[in-house]
């Protein structure tokens, strides 16, 4: 296997980890206004992700850094091309990030309402935009001969991408709701369960719509072939099973299934892309691939060594942090503000 392929896989892993982990904390942020009726409940809901969200977001920062290091042309074309979309994403991530820290540091109700609103929008916008971005990767965007993006912001907002955006928005919401059923108690848990059941239907329908739409809009199916393997199939089956598991009150399994569905859909899109990273809608030859956009073998080799040492280490201590905070958070627990 060549180094380019290894790095394509590693970036797939980083985005998969990001969507799996930050997916549920986006979901919790989106559900915040629907889950909680008073300030104490809101704080409880936030505390379910309090120790984790920042570490989850580093998966994105690392994915961005890895793209820059391993595939600079991909990073440069994507970030300069999807300019306004990324600006929106940055605004959302800034407001959301400080909101977690700032909301409880002052007890004026308007102050708290503003930062809670920031947590909601700051979670919903990226949850939507990531779907939009990934749909455009695979559908293709106008990229010219010299690897420069030749479209505008509104090229990205095509119906296909919007369906994918709504699908990711609703799946992350579902993932967050199921996470909350695992991390809360009493009436909050009941509310989370009922929200999860409500969100499941639109999330599933939108995902199916996205799959059908992909048949028309992309070459995903031709690339995956008649036997796409277990990953794409399981991403669908896992999502379908969630409602059954929720009915049986098997929250843990349901969470595993929303997680698998998110992870496997991400992997499926990367499988459909391979070896391309950004498809040109103007001319297939102008697409960015792992070969025409990669760094030198020397750089990729150094990065491979670094990743081989530190990725497992990160997984160990991040995993340990989840174990430390494995208990449910209730409105009666001592809440860290």
């Amino acid at each position, binding site marked *: 296997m060549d180094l380019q392929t290894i790095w394509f896989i590693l970036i797939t892993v980083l985005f998969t980890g990001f969507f799996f982990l930050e997916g549920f904390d986006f979901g919790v942020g989106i559900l915040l206004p629907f889950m909680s009726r008073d300030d104490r409940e809101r704080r409880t809901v936030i505390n379910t992700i*309090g*120790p*984790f969200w*920042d*570490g989850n*977001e*580093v998966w994105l*920062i*690392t994915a*961005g*850094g*890895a*793209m*820059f*290091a*391993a595939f*600079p*042309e991909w*990073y*440069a*074309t*994507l*970030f*300069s091309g999807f*300019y*306004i979309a*990324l*600006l929106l994403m*940055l*605004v959302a*991530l*800034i407001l959301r*990030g*400080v909101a*977690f*820290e*700032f909301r409880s*540091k*002052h007890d004026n109700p308007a102050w708290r309402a503003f930062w809670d609103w920031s947590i909601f929008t700051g979670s919903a916008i990226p949850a939507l935009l990531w779907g939009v971005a990934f749909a455009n990767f695979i559908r293709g965007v106008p990229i010219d001969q010299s*690897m*420069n*993006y*030749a479209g505008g912001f509104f090229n990205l907002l095509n119906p296909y991408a919007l369906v994918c955006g709504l699908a990711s928005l609703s799946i992350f919401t579902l993932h967050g709701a199921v996470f909350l059923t695992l991390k809360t108690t009493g009436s909050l848990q009941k509310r989370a369960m009922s929200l999860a059941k409500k969100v499941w239907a639109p999330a599933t329908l939108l995902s199916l719509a996205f799959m059908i739409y992909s048949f028309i809009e992309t070459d995903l199916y031709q690339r995956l072939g008649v036997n796409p393997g277990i990953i794409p199939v399981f991403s669908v089956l896992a999502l379908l099973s969630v409602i059954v598991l929720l009915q049986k009150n098997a929250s843990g399994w349901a969470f595993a299934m929303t997680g698998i569905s998110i992870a496997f859909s991400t992997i499926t899109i990367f499988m459909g892309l391979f070896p391309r990273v950004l498809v040109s809608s103007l001319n297939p030859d102008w697409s960015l691939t792992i070969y025409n956009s990669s*760094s*030198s073998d*020397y*750089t990729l080799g*150094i*990065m491979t060594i*670094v*990743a081989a040492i*530190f990725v497992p280490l*990160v997984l160990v*201590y*991040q995993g340990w*942090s989840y174990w*430390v*905070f494995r208990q449910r958070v209730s409105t009666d627990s*001592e809440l*860290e503000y």
Partner: protein
Amino acid sequence: MPEPHSVIIHSVTFPHVTIALEIIMDTLFLARLQFALTSVFHFFFVPLTLGLSIFTAIMETAWVRTGNEKYRKLTKFWGKLFLINFAVGVVTGIVMEFQFGMNWSEYSRFVGDIFGVPLAIEALLAFFLESVFLGIWVFGWNKIPKTLHATAIWLVAIGSNLSALWILVANSFMQSPVGYRMAADGSRAEMIDFSALLFNPYVWKQFPHVLAGGLVTGGFLVIAVSTWHLVRNSKERSEFETSMKFGAIYAFIGTILVTLAGHTQMQDLIESQPMKVAAAEALWETENPASFSLFTVGDEKELKDVFAVRIPGMLSFLAYNSFEGEVKGIKDLQKEYEIKYGPGNYIPSIITAYWSFRFMVGAGTLMLLVSLIALYKVIRENYTFSPLLGTLLFWSFLLPYIANSSGWILAEMGRQPWIVFGLLKTEDAVSPASVVSSTELLISLVVFVLIYGLLTLVDVFLLKKHAAAGLEAAE
């Protein structure tokens, strides 16, 4: 391209307006302005994160080792201020990582093979460490053993300071490129020696300076807040006396280190970036022995003094520890670079380099003075301050901010016209206007100015509120 009619009319009627508009709507200008604003703003928060994380860790270690409740309260108190500041440092850092690709795509393509590597390593080694263990520290007070809890804040401190190391590895390549070769077609620089990049002498001059800058920033904030409480004779007097003691020692050590590190860095610059030194000194002609400027009003067009007070031989002394030795002047360096790099203007904005250097050194000198006074008071165990001294000790927390910002302005502006010294000019690094238009750049600039303005207000408000509220409220 023929000029549109309306523009011609404008240039006849309001020539200055048209010229001003052309400058404002130039993508290079907008991208540079945005980088300057977002990076200086980001670096308002970073040094305090570096310094206060270590300070908080020291407080908690003192608690674990002595079992004295006072230190636990102080850990909570300084930890809270640390967290408010940390949040803004993190989110403004994400903007920096995205900005290279968004506004500087040509730069990203040119240096990605090298520059991307420390950025990726920074995320993997440092960001994970600080954010995961910060979560454990904030939410783990009653969940994990004391020693482990103290270890968590040390890991946050190590993570933060490691991230500074890796971003400086990246920046040092821009200042003094090593361990690379140019690709056969000249389209990009490629890494050939990772250890050369990591052991770039520039890194190991710059990193101690930045690290010590963090200690100073943290130390002076601790002095300021402690003074504020001591002057008001708050009921937590004994705790703030302890804070003052640690803060004064911390600030003093930091100031000595930052001065020494700055001095060695400047000596190194004479070799690696003589033009930056010459600009910072407004040294037009090569001199031996070279004089140090105390005050210069210069003419940047004619490259000469209008009015200047200089100390003879002093610059040679600072550069070589001897009153002899040649320091190259701006005019000679310009000639040298024209021969080496082809025709062009290789002189950075002298007024910016000159004054940013003076602001940095001036603030540093005052910090040395203030930290000595604070240390003297602490040694005498005298914690009563005259109103004048109280005011001085309080407001001196601004000095490190002035020094940090002007230091970076000198480092980055003094390197111009290069973005990567000797390899790529800043004007060739910006995203093509066909991809990122001046309108888009203007929109993002306005958005960042508004959001960063809001963050400043909120951050100052919260820091003030929680610093004034004292230890009891931080429980």
